[in-house]
């Protein structure tokens, strides 16, 4: 029965009562003075494109036969998937944490700092990278590129606005350091993912937990379970679904149970039905069309 516990419940069962070694626990992220406009108006949930613009856009896509799978990388990976990763551990001084953020900061006792936020975001981005690599090469690479570009554009802006860095040179140094951290973490997680749970755990320890000496192994195990379960869900998702942005991370207080072959066949059938109908329907807008596989 142990298989179906959620990472959060696993963590809560631990009796290890050591306090974390937090050297920077007070360095929380300040709420920006004027909660800035990170997103453009086109990315706001309430914004609707005027109908004539929409129609013009659709006509344009159709006439010039734009490769929507390529175009879609921007809004899906650059905006939607980045915001998923970013929100997992977003935190501001004096503000209530989200349920997922509580798992990372309170249950796993990670320090509430900007660089810790980056490490958590990075872990989620890497999980998505693994799935993106399984897309046809040119699309997967494009999705990864958009996600990384957006991450660094956002960090640069947050450094100035929230962390009150006001020197371009210092901001550049931070960005270089974050880039190094990203390459290091992706490399270490890749190795762990492909080899074994123990190696993945060591990679998590070195990156997410900053090599903390008094680590609780139960926490480490929970994070490995968390990662592998997300990757499992992603492995059952077709390219089409993933590319359209039909994915959310499973929250840490929920558990993932492996599908039976029957459930899996049923799931595949439903997905195929949905997209077959969509592809056949002459009324499907050009912008919703895709050539990516929905059967894999």
């Amino acid at each position, binding site marked *: 029965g142990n298989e179906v516990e959620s990472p959060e419940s696993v963590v809560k069962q631990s009796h290890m009562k050591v306090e974390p070694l937090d*050297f920077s626990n007070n360095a929380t992220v300040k709420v920006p003075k004027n909660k800035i406009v990170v997103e453009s108006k086109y990315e706001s949930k309430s914004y609707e494109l005027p109908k004539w613009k929409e129609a013009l856009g659709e006509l344009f896509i159709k006439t010039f036969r734009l490769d929507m799978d390529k175009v879609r990388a921007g809004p899906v990976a650059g905006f939607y998937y980045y915001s998923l990763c970013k929100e997992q551990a977003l935190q501001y001084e004096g503000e209530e944490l989200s349920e997922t953020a509580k798992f990372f900061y309170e249950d796993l006792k990670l320090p509430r700092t900007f660089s810790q936020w980056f490490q958590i975001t990075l872990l989620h981005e890497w999980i998505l990278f693994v799935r993106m690599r*399984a897309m046809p*090469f040119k699309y*997967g690479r494009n999705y990864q590129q958009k996600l990384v570009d957006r991450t660094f554009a956002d960090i640069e802006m947050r450094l100035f606005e929230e962390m009150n860095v006001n020197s371009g040179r210092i901001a550049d140094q931070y960005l270089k350091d974050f880039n190094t951290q990203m390459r*290091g973490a992706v490399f270490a997680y890749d190795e762990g993912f492909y080899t074994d749970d123990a190696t993945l755990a060591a990679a998590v320890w070195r990156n997410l937990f*900053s090599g903390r000496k008094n680590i609780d192994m139960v926490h*480490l195990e929970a994070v490995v379970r968390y990662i592998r379960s997300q990757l499992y869900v992603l492995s059952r998702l077709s390219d089409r679904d993933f590319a359209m942005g039909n994915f959310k991370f499973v929250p840490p207080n929920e558990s993932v149970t492996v599908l039976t072959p029957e459930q899996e066949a049923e799931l595949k059938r439903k997905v195929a039905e949905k997209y077959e109908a969509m592809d056949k329907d002459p009324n499907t807008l050009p912008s919703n069309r895709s050539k990516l596989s929905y059967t894999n």
Partner: protein
Amino acid sequence: MSSSQAVRDAAKQLVSVLERFPAQRIRHIVSFKDSQIERFKRVAGLSVDGGSGNNKKASIEEIKDIINRTSGPLGLQKDLLKKMQAALPDDELSLQSIEEQIKALNSLTSNKYKNYYDVGDKLYKPAGNPQYYQRILDEIEGKKKETFMSAFRTVVFGK
């Protein structure tokens, strides 16, 4: 007294589980296995430097390699890392918590989650770049070194 003896025995067992952990394939500035063995040896009352002290000091070549690979040791800020390493955790461990630690480590060494949440070749041999992970592993393990041409090809074509 008897309970602290039980804690020490459990910690010894924990150390032996840690010793079964795979050694890291490439050297990092801190090793999970070594630092944790040291930590729990202290709890178990074993001598820290003896036993598995098989020449842990990095050679000059290895240090150069680590520094060249990344400017910060694979995702860590150096000053923070130093502080972390200098601080000694004052673990107050109960028998119950040590047993939980052992159980957690055992599920990790037995590959429980990799096996249970099997993602198959779809992710291990990803369509966009089927050799991706194998190439990384070959390089790490020194089985097959990248040549100048193969590295150049990766830079130009991305795979």
